[in-house]
């Protein structure tokens, strides 16, 4: 009987067939044995330009071209490898040193094995993606070699061989093969010119075997040590592994162990454990919260023990703690820098997870929770028992100068330093570096590698320096990195998608031209645009004209970006990735290349432009009779700024048609606005200021900081844009019931407002009614304080923070009743009016074009690529994220600018020997036990005021940071949690004498200045300091 078994190893005929067997567990719980047959080939090229054999055998594509070879003919050499070398890293080398491989100073000509790539994918998806990106870039010369498919380099797993050993062997086999292969095939056959193949591995066993087999292999650090600038490069190696080896099995473990993965999954499925995103309170780094689907309100996570190595943003699994451990949220400001300033990054043995100081900070909270307080009921708390997904990224920070003190800057010795991340929610990171002295005073980029149970802080490594602290370039880049804004210049592939005419592109003159197909000629309409001053990317323009029947035609014309950005080309993909244009004070990070954004798409005045128009017929009472959508060609008559438009409208002498049409628009907008308000739209406030840069050096730098003025013309534009958005939303939803791109603002759960309601009741005897948006709008209107005109705005700001944020979604993702936009009180909404700066609008344009059967230049509707819901949901997720980050980045940028302006002013004042700082009005937003949060409307900033920064009569003269810090010891406070008041006095003094009492919502006089921390904790860091001068003004 002939055997049926396919025993491949013993059959020489079947040498090119092999199989790969593994177990696959599917999400649905199936466990399958998978057998894949591999057919080995010999035409996979080595891709070295030296090789003369591979170009003749390499597989060609349909056009007969072979993929260009990657590895250089004359690769760079080092002192150890003067003939040049190709690198073959193993998986661990990439895991530990991905930053190195991305470094532009070294690591060229790298052969990435398929084996390694797959292993990396299993171990770390982010690193895998980074490696793929590296392989794609041409200049680094990374070659992905499919070693598993090539006959000579395929390795069969031995009977008792572990997968790791087998993969290591595969790496060595490839190295051997390359050496042999290049020797025989090198052009010119000059032995001397053949580069060495260097295996990079940190596995000792692998190194030993390599030596045995005559393969050149080095550990990552040994290899890097032989390069130029090795100190800097060595710092970029992942710390975790090395550290773990060095420490070995140390006794003390600070943190509880995580549950096993399967236990977590079981628990989450069974509902005993909960999964959610871990968030850290901005006021107290020891307090985190987590929203899980099972409960309405977030759960509290108090202390390092319970947060158990989770870092803000991680997806974690938590376990609810027993009721006797429930606590009230903290009423205390706890700042990591202040509490842990004396930690020594080297002395780990003396560390406890919860230091005495931290414990004290927590104790007081417990006291509070168990106090007589009726209102502050203990809230459920939880502890982290596992991490599903680390969302660690690269963090911008600076070296804590206090932590380098111990060893001086004695040469190039490696030492541990703490890096304080810019993001206060992230704990300090322990970084080993050889260049501590150089890094002081620099903005640096670091990453977290690990957080082991035996380490109080996460360990990470240095990636690169952005430049000196407080330099414009470094700080701007820091902001962009911190908020994950894609700021690199557009790649060539994207720029290739632009019209070849460049700035000379014109609307075709002949109407026979294909560009006119399906477009309406609206060039004779008196259209104008109204935007902020200096606006270059003009998205929208308007017109209004009377119709013979007594009604009016009103038109909103939006830049026709979708004409220039075709679906799924490189530019479209780049734009969908960027999601939005990011506005910083002095910089704009565009979503679309400059040429489109500020010229070809922009509805500039006096030139013809393609537009997408929404036209309504309205009665004189602004009732919509009909709506029409069309692609069009327009010629804007004028580009106004808000102010100019306002002036023109207000000018009684202006009687021209354009002005009249603007007046009509204004009148209509007021009616529309009233209707919207009647429907229950909220008038929300955000603490925004505007920076008008490019002022001269001489003037007061603070003069640039302006609160946003609201003119009638602002709301004119806003109303019509809202109206256009709603009209378009209805239209695309009627055509694409599943895939329409919409925007919703979920009704906030009433419990979000609980605290604010409490505060208002207590302090002002006011109520806010959250039963509907209408009720909320009305009750907000009633929150007025005669003596305090800003009070209403303050309440609105606080109310806004209680709400959820609006989000993009695709129509199929929610029931129609959930489409509602709460803030605008509209049953359906989308974004249509700013396609130059928002990707969502661009998609909506495409959907609308398809909905009105616009065929486009090539005779096809261009909705391909937006028809599948999955893809749309991916896009929504991304643009929601980008949108949020863009807002944060913008705000942070303003904050930074205000700080710099204050600094500049301070320096100027210092020259004339006057006290730095400026006196302003501030409002108390939150009261803590040891400080308050004050909002300063003038600068749109809010800041923490600690006990020492209350200026009491006895210490009015003390202004420097150091002097004030001395005061901490003498201060005492009396905090009333129910009344939201805080009385600050000096120890030993009577209550009335020289004390200050502040309460919530109160207006206070503050002194705002920019100070630099000196000595001690967080040295070198600049912050805006607010001093409370008094409250009886």
């Amino acid at each position, binding site marked *: *009987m002939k*055997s*049926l*078994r*396919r025993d491949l190893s013993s059959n020489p005929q079947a040498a090119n067939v092999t*199989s790969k*067997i*593994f*177990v*696959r*567990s599917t999400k649905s*719980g*199936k*466990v399958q*044995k998978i*057998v894949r047959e591999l057919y080995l080939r010999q035409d996979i090229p080595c891709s070295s330009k030296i090789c003369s054999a591979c170009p003749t055998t390499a597989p060609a594509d349909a056009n007969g071209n072979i993929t260009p070879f990657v590895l250089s003919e004359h690769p760079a050499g080092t002192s150890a490898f003067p003939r040049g070398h190709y690198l073959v890293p193993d998986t661990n080398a990439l895991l530990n040193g991905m930053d190195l491989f991305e470094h532009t100073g070294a690591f060229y000509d790298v052969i990435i094995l398929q084996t390694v790539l797959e292993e990396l994918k299993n171990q770390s998806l982010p690193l895998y993606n980074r490696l793929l990106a590296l392989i794609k870039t041409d200049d680094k010369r990374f070659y992905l070699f499919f070693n598993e498919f090539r006959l000579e380099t395929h390795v069969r*797993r031995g009977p008792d061989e572990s*997968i790791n050993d087998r993969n290591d062997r595969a790496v060595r086999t490839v190295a051997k093969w390359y050496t042999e292969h290049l020797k025989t095939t090198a052009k010119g056959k000059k032995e001397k010119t053949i580069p060495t193949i260097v295996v990079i591995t940190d596995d000792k066993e692998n190194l030993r075997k390599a030596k045995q087999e005559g393969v050149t292999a080095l550990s990552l650090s040994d290899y890097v040590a032989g390069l130029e600038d090795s100190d800097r490069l060595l710092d970029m190696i992942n710390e975790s592994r090395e550290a773990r080896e060095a420490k070995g099995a140390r006794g003390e473990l600070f943190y509880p162990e995580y549950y*096993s*993965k*399967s*236990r977590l*999954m*079981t628990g989450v*499925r069974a509902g005993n454990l909960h999964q959610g995103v871990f968030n850290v309170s901005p006021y107290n780094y020891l307090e985190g919260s987590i929203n899980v689907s099972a409960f309405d309100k977030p759960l509290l996570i108090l202390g390092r023990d319970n947060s158990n190595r989770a870092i803000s943003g991680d997806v974690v699994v938590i376990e609810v703690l027993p009721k006797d451990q429930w606590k009230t949220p903290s009423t205390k400001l706890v700042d990591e820098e202040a509490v842990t300033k004396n930690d020594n990054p080297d002395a780990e043995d003396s560390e406890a997870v919860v230091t005495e100081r931290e414990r004290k900070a927590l104790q007081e909270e417990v006291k509070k929770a168990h106090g007589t307080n009726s209102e502050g009921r203990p809230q459920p708390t939880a502890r982290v028992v596992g991490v599903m997904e680390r969302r660690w990224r690269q963090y911008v920070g600076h070296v804590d100068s206090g932590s380098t003190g111990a060893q001086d800057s004695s040469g190039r010795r490696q030492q541990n330093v703490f890096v304080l991340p810019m993001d206060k929610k992230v704990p300090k990171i322990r970084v080993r570096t050889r260049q501590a002295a150089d890094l002081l005073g620099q903005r640096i980029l670091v990453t977290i590698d690990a957080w082991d149970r035996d380490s109080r802080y996460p360990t990470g490594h240095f990636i690169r320096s952005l430049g000196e602290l407080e330099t414009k370039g470094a700080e701007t880049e820091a902001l962009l990195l911190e908020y994950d804004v894609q700021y690199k210049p557009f790649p060539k592939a994207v720029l290739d998608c632009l019209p070849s005419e460049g700035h000379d592109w014109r609307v075709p003159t002949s109407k026979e031209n294909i560009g006119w197909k399906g477009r309406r000629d609206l060039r004779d309409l008196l259209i104008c645009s109204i935007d902020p001053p200096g606006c270059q990317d003009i998205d929208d323009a308007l017109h209004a004209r009377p119709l013979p029947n007594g009604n009016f035609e009103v038109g909103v014309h939006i830049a026709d970006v979708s004409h220039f950005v075709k679906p799924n080309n490189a530019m479209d993909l780049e734009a969908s990735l960027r999601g939005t244009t990011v506005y910083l004070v002095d910089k704009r990070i565009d979503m679309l290349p400059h040429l489109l954004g500020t010229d070809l798409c922009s509805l500039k005045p006096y030139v013809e432009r393609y537009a997408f128009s929404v036209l309504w017929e309205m009665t004189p009472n602004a009732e919509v009779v009909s709506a029409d959508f069309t692609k069009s060609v327009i010629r804007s008559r004028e580009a106004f700024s808000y102010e100019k438009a306002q002036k023109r409208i207000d000018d009684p002498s202006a009687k021209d048609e354009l002005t009249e049409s603007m007046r009509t628009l204004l009148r209509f907008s007021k009616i529309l606005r009233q209707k919207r308000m009647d429907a229950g739209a909220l008038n929300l406030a955000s603490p925004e200021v505007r920076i008008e840069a490019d002022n001269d050096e001489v003037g007061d730098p603070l003069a640039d900081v302006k609160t946003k003025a609201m003119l009638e013309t602002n709301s004119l534009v806003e109303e019509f844009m809202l109206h256009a958005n709603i009209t378009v939303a209805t239209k695309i939803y009627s055509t694409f019931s599943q895939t329409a791109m919409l925007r919703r603002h979920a009704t906030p759960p009433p419990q979000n407002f609980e605290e604010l309601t409490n505060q208002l009741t207590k302090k002002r005897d006011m109520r806010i009614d959250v039963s509907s948006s209408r009720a909320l709008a009305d009750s907000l209107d009633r929150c007025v304080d005669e003596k305090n005109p800003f009070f209403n705005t303050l309440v609105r700001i606080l109310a806004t923070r209680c709400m959820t944020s609006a989000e993009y979604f695709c129509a199929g993702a929610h029931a129609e009743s959930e489409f509602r936009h709460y803030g605008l009180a509209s049953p359906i909404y989308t974004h249509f009016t700013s396609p130059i700066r928002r990707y969502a609008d661009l998609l909506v344009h495409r959907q609308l074009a398809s909905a009105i059967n616009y065929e486009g230049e090539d005779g096809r509707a261009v909705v391909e690529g937006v028809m599948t819901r999955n893809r749309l949901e991916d896009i929504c997720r991304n643009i929601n994220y980008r949108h949020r980050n863009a807002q944060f980045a913008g705000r942070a940028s303003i904050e930074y600018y205000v700080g710099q302006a204050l600094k500049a002013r301070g320096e100027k004042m210092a020259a004339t020997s006057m006290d730095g700082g400026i006196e302003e009005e501030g409002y108390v937003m939150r009261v803590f036990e040891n400080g308050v949060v004050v909002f300063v409307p003038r600068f749109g900033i809010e800041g923490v005021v600690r006990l020492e920064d209350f200026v009491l009569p006895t210490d009015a003269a003390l202004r420097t940071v150091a002097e004030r810090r001395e005061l901490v010891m003498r201060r005492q406070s009396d905090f009333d949690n129910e009344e939201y008041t805080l009385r600050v006095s000096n120890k030993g003094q009577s209550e009335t004498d020289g004390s200050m009492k502040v309460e919530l919502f109160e207006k206070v006089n503050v002194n705002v200045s920019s100070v630099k921390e000196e000595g001690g904790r967080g040295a070198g860091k600049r912050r805006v300091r607010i001093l409370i001068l008094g409250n009886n003004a």
Partner: protein
Amino acid sequence: MAAQRQASSASQTPLISPAELAYLYTSLSLPDGPIRPDGRSATQFRPLTAETDILPGTNGSARVGFADGTQAIVGVKAEVEKTVVAAEALNLSQHGAEDFADTEGDERHQSPSAGHGSWVQMSIEIPGFRDDDALPVFLSEMMREPLVESVSDGHGGSDDMAGGLKGRLVINKRWHWRLYIDVLLLSQPLSYPLPLLSLTTHLALLSTKLPKLKSQGEEDPFFDDDWNAAEYLYPRSQLKSHLSPTQQVRPPVTLLVISVGENVVFDPNREEIAVADTVLAVSVTRDSDSDGLKLLSIRTVDPPSRLTQPGVPNSENVATLGSTAAAEEALEMNPSTEEDIPGVWKPRRGGVKRRTIAKMLKLVLEKGGVGEEVLEGLEGVEVG
């Protein structure tokens, strides 16, 4: 209908004349031991070839071929499945020990480690038969039953096999493996296919591996993705000499035994079955409890000899007597069938002697007997 009827009996009755049957019967029932048509001894098996792991996509597989050209392939697949726990089983503790006693009887009162017979599914495909024909259904039940009922309480060698195969399939209280055993007879059933299928199934189960469990206790199961780390369904000894093979729980084998007169014949071929007095399917297994073999089940198989036509003695033969009248007379004179006439075939009727069954079982079960011989032989087939 004829085919149906034959299917339910031991095999398709070969077309053998009564005279041939009588000859066969006589030579098999010789008091000094049977003389078998193929010259084998009474306990000798037909030569067979076997190999395992022939189907890479399965958890375990085997193929066995007899020299007469009959071949069978068995593939075993395993799937993780959620255990449906009846509400009653959850408050087992309340019921106490009284219910515990009859775990077999009442499925609702299982102990946590007890599996369920329905977790093993067997399907048999025989060329020329529909899957709901009597033969495949009967065969599969005949083989499945000893498989799932071979319970040992695990006091012996290995705890892994506590509760037998059913117990081995339990992952935890909420999860278990489901086993699909697909048996495929490649050739026409020349002889009764039970021994062939049973041997093949046995081998396939021996080579069956389950992915290694990584999770613990009551967690949702989570497995090692390395197939090389997978574990045998029936644990194999690491060193052959270290653990005595008798200590190891093995899947059962079902042997076909016939009795012809006073003689007992193993592994009968088609012709031998045709004249058998009794056909027994005896399932035995090796158990961790005791040194010897354990008898799991005995089934009697309807011997086809009952359906054969009797031979007619010359004395009664009309053809030889020449007249019908004489024949009738002869019939009256010898109300035939009562007594045997040597050399004339007469279908067997009536029961089996207790002594004969005891003898058959003894031959199977005794130390160094046929059962052990077969199991050892199968053990010798290289697995993996």
